[in-house]
């Protein structure tokens, strides 16, 4: 698949990472996936600093963000991104276990692009990840100049 955008997954749980990657691989969406294990790493990636200082330039096509993360939490990452002129156009999808109204409200107020609750059922989970990957990395047109072709 050409023109496939890079997907940034921010997820602390290795099992969730593996299951997400499995789902993406099933649909050939896993060739450009970056994993960040906490909020700090995600921000380091986005700002090209620390271990990601030498990464290829350009923003990811989409960022799948868990809310409960060590060090810097998901909502903090979201707030940081949406208040930064250069990063606010990166589409952020919250992918979390939390059904809580409070979390949804906070996320939407901070300007999240989508909020997806991880389904317990594996098929549904795979479907959700696949659809997210297809939509944001393939169907959606990214903001001009943000994602390298």
């Amino acid at each position, binding site marked *: 698949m050409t023109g496939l955008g890079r997907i940034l997954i921010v997820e602390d749980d290795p099992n*969730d990472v593996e299951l997400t990657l499995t789902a993406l691989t099933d649909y050939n969406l896993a060739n450009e996936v970056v994993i960040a294990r906490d909020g700090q790493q995600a921000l380091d990636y986005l700002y090209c600093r620390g271990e990601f200082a030498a990464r290829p330039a350009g923003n990811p096509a989409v960022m799948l963000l868990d809310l409960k993360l060590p060090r810097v939490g998901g909502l903090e990452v979201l707030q940081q991104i949406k208040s930064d002129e250069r990063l606010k156009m990166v589409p952020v999808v919250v992918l979390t*276990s939390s059904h809580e109204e409070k979390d949804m409200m906070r996320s939407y107020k901070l300007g999240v692009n989508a909020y997806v609750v991880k389904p317990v059922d594996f098929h549904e989970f795979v479907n959700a990840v696949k659809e997210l990957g297809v939509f944001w990395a393939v169907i959606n047109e990214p903001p001009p100049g943000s994602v390298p072709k």
Partner: protein
Amino acid sequence: MTELAEGPTRIGVRGSLSYWNREFQRIHSPILRYGFSVVSVAVALGIAFILQHYGFRDVEVPVLTVAIAFATWYAGIGPSVLSVVLSLLFFDYFFLEPYYSFDISTRDLPYFFIFLGWAGIVASFSAVRRRIEDNLRQARDHLQVEVEQRRQREDEIRSLNLELGKRALELEASNKELESFAYSVSHDLRAPLRHMVGYSELLQRQASSVLDEKSQRFIRTILDSAKRMGTLIDDLLAFSRIGRAETRKTQVDLRQLVEEVVAEIGQDTKGRDIAWKIGTLPACYGDRSMLRLAVVNLASNAVKFTRMRKAAEIEIGAVDRGENEVELFVRDNGAGFDMQYVDKLFGVFQRLHLPEQFEGTGIGLATVQRIIHRHGGQVRGEGALDQGATFYFSLPKAQHAGERTANAS
């Protein structure tokens, strides 16, 4: 701040009051009082003699009445009588002819009586004044006691208020704790479940060719149990959310609400023969989405437990219960229950049937109960084994909503 500002004046008033209290108490001693009476008469007599010595005539009557007035004024009734008697005796002895004897000549009799009357009037005026003063003092003491009691009560109220404030803070803290507990349950319990399901499915997919039928069944059981636990967690979370969520109460048209629910359930029961009977339903006052959930739970219960009936009958109606509340009921001709276990009906995760007979987590009726309790109503169930069940719940009527919720909260 106001109390500080008032302080000095209050203390000043109190100080002078207690000073006068002491003044009066000094003369309360009987020896001093009668002594005072005797001394004033004696002094008056001395003054009369001195004045007489210097040639002043007929001054003894005013001087002695002044002495009587003093004794009455400061020493009370008994001493005043004593002073009158003493004055009369001295007057008669020293100033009425014949001098230096207690005899009274007939000529001086009116003079004597005028003095007696004059002394009596002065004494009675003073007595009245004392009585009024006593009354005033009593009233003041009474007021002081009352003020003191009121201050104590105010202190009590203040400390109760403080206590209440503390309680509210504690409650808020424990509420927050509960909330964060529910939050971590929602988040942290779900993740391992998802992994169990995910990896079991992956295992199923990868190893289905090498596993025998028994092993495959084991994997299916793991999957079913994990999914069931997921449902339980979701139900429990929804249940706890109902306890925490704020109710947004408005007037609710129950007829419309019930019809909506029945139409929705009808979508899922197309293959079945269910006769819905909806009676006249009034408007009530409550949180629409919560009440809807309660009706959905009761109606889907009725649908579930009439599954083995060829022709199922479900009736939803209302009974008027006085002017304040209305009781709704959902009646079915399904499996029913033994009234022996009626206490367990509304408990969390309590079930009266085997999972093979009827699926479910056992949270539906507990949710109904919680919703109705939050509306200030009551729930109850009636039934008999294999003869259907009826579930009742009461709600405040729309026009009495205000007072009712005020009582309930």
